[in-house]
């Protein structure tokens, strides 16, 4: 029997396929398990609108004193598009996003102006008409779940901290922290590449860098599931990457639990040059790719939190707990 299993393993290895037993041993959370055991158990449905609507999230965060990019304007009705020109007139840089969009869809980033035209993050130039068409699409529900009518939110553009300039090709790198019952459990940084078209979206080819919860130091980096050492466009080595304001980032993320009461939450942050860490958006169904970026399964950490006797600790204690228990194994060995 032993030779048979080794034969099967060799064949699987060749096809780059693993087995459920290996995945379980690595503690990898599956999509089904995430949906059933974590999202449906810890994220009550009636709370989901809080994070599905970015405008609500933003207002809630402002009320809770959690830092977010500044809100400039909200376009609610198609007829309001007439005012768009006057709203945009004084702005050099801004972001327009659908309030109920998901997965970064429909987000328009304008980094500058060229006379009448607007310059996108990718360098393309857009006419005002193109922008108002985009806003009209947003309001029509093109990017919202189920095609419901939506709002367009105009907010200030983040001035990315130059510390990451060497690591990102265009676009603003963002940091994703998974917060489970108020405890930060896993983190990664997403860096745009030429292949991802300046978007920090992993499945479009952005680089994911796993971060040590204890220190904010990079652990490992992957692009399209494969480990990489250097940024494919800038050539910069990821091993030296260390995220500043790490403790602040963890505290901000953990605070989102009190704000939303969602038990299983993905918190997306950005580092602003002047303002430091800002909450960009919250996600009640964070993806599983963070495990690949970290080279580690998330399930053992979730189990550790679940096994705790007391969960309603102050933010500082929760962060300290996570930093103590989820320190990267590699630093020990």
């Amino acid at each position: 029997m032993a030779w048979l299993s080794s034969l099967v393993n060799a064949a699987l290895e060749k096809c780059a396929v693993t087995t459920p037993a290996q995945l379980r041993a690595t503690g990898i959370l599956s999509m089904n398990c995430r949906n059933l055991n974590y999202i449906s158990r810890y994220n009550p449905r009636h709370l989901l609108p809080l994070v599905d609507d970015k405008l609500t999230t933003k207002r809630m965060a402002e009320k809770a004193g959690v830092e977010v990019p500044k809100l400039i304007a909200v376009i609610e009705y198609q007829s309001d598009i007439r005012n768009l020109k006057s709203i945009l007139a004084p702005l050099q840089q801004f972001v327009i996003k659908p309030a109920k969009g998901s997965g970064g869809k429909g987000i328009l980033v304008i980094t500058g102006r060229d006379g009448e035209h607007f310059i996108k993050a990718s360098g393309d130039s857009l006419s005002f008409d193109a922008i108002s068409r985009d806003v009209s699409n947003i309001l029509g529900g093109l990017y919202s779940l189920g095609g419901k009518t939506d709002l367009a939110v105009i907010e200030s553009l983040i001035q990315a901290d130059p510390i990451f300039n060497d690591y990102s090709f265009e676009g603003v790198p963002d940091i994703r922290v998974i917060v489970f019952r108020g405890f930060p459990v896993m983190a990664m940084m997403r860096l745009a590449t030429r292949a991802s078209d300046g978007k920090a979206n992993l499945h479009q080819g952005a680089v994911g860098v796993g971060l040590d919860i204890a220190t904010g130091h990079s652990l490992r980096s992957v692009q399209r599931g494969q480990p990489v050492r250097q940024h494919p466009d800038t050539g910069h080595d990821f091993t030296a990457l260390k995220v500043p304001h790490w403790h602040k980032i963890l505290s901000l993320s953990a605070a989102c639990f009190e704000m939303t009461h969602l038990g299983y939450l993905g918190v997306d942050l950005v580092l602003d040059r002047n303002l430091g860490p800002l909450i960009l958006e919250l996600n009640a169904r964070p993806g599983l790719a963070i495990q690949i970026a970290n080279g580690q399964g998330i399930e053992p950490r979730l189990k550790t939190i679940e096994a705790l006797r007391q969960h309603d600790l102050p933010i500082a204690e929760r962060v300290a707990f996570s930093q103590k228990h989820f320190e990267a194994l590699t630093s020990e060995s």
Partner: protein
Amino acid sequence: MRETMKGRFQLGVMITLLILAGLGLTLYKHFVLGFPLLGKDTSTVWSIEAWVSFKAQGGTAQASLTLPDQQSDVWIMDESFASPGYGINQINDGGQRRAVWSIRKANGRQDLFYKVRLRQQPGGPTVNDQPEPFITPVLPEPYQTAAQSLLNTVTEGSADASSFAGTLLSHFNASKPDQNVNMLLGMVEEGVKAPDLLINLLHMANIPARIVRGLQLEDGRRRQPIVDMIEVYDGENWQLFDPRTGQSGNAENFFLWQRGAKSLLDVMGGINSDVNFSIISQQIPTRELALTQATQEQAALIDFSIYALPLEAQNAFKIILLIPIGVLVVLFMRIIVGLRTSGTFMPVLIAMAFLQTQLLPGLVIFISLVSIGLWIRSFLSQQNMLLVARLGAVIIVVILLMAAMSILSWKLGITQALTVTFFPMIILAWTIERMSILWEEEGPGDVLKEGGGSLLVATLSYLLMSSRIVEQLTFNFPELMLTLLGIVLLLGQYTGYRLLELKRFYPLVRAARQPR
């Protein structure tokens, strides 16, 4: 935590109950009500017509005919009488049903008909009939002596009642009968019926026996006479013997019309009476048979089911009942395999369209419609317009495309493309819209991936839904939907890895292994 455990337990019980109920009802319908599970779809139904004829003599006429009874291996589906001007009565004459035709005044030739439809069905209720007591007969000499000596010989060469009967018959059917048999056959020449003689001989040996009458079931037989057979009681069952061949056993396709020696037909007020039988067999769908039978027996399961609906509604249900199969395929591909499709249950709707168009034409039509639609949609997206209006425009364009496709293909003589109308156009329009957004946002690669996933799932659903076995099972046993529901609930509990995740997380497992 305890709450969830309790919830899980309740759900587990529910799932088990649903699956068992579905399977149980199905098996009940199969084994008790006789619905065909799979395979042979038709069964033979025999139609036997008894034609009684006699010459009436101008006065009151009455004819009575023995009617067949429900028997253990035969199910009588229905019977009917045809006889102009006659009153018909069914009477019970010592445990045997008889039909009595009577008329006050009749003259000349009279024709009366009795028609019965029946189906051979093994494993029916056993008829309990014990032999009646009889008096040992005494034959006139010299036959009595010959009979005694023959019976002694036979007793020596046999062990029990049935072997006794077999041996006795073989003596009578021997090519050179011995002296005693020859003597007894003399009685037959004197006018005693051979079966009656054999019964007497068996009774003399103290073996319960009786004459039965029946018909050999053969398709297309006309003017068939009724055949006399002998039944011998072996202490537990009646064994059937053919007096002409000495063969034992329940002869295949022998339909018992009457037990006992009473006359088959009695006619009063007429002469030259005769009864003839004609037999035809029909192939009838087994399901229909089971339905008729169940309706007659008033099985509640059938009475309150979709079979009670008009035929048209039933046909609609035939397709609707296939949807859960498609749903199951979608769930399986999502939860177990992890395939991405555009629109959760859209593949089921496409598969239903495929059922009308067949697979290949369906795929061709679908892909070409969506491609042309995408091309037109890309033109529309350059125009500044509201989303709802654009969706509406896409729907109208899809309809125009369908019409164009139908007309063009009709002129070209490709009739298959006419089935294009079976595609739900709202679904098509939504698919086009979704695909075009996907194209703009994620690029053509994702469109191919998602579209391909949808078509793959649709094709798999189609292949399952178009299978005859599946169609038969879902329509004949809608109870199976309970089982499907149970399986769906069970799938909803699956927290294991998806097949595609085994590939997705492969680099991770390798990375986790390396440092050690």
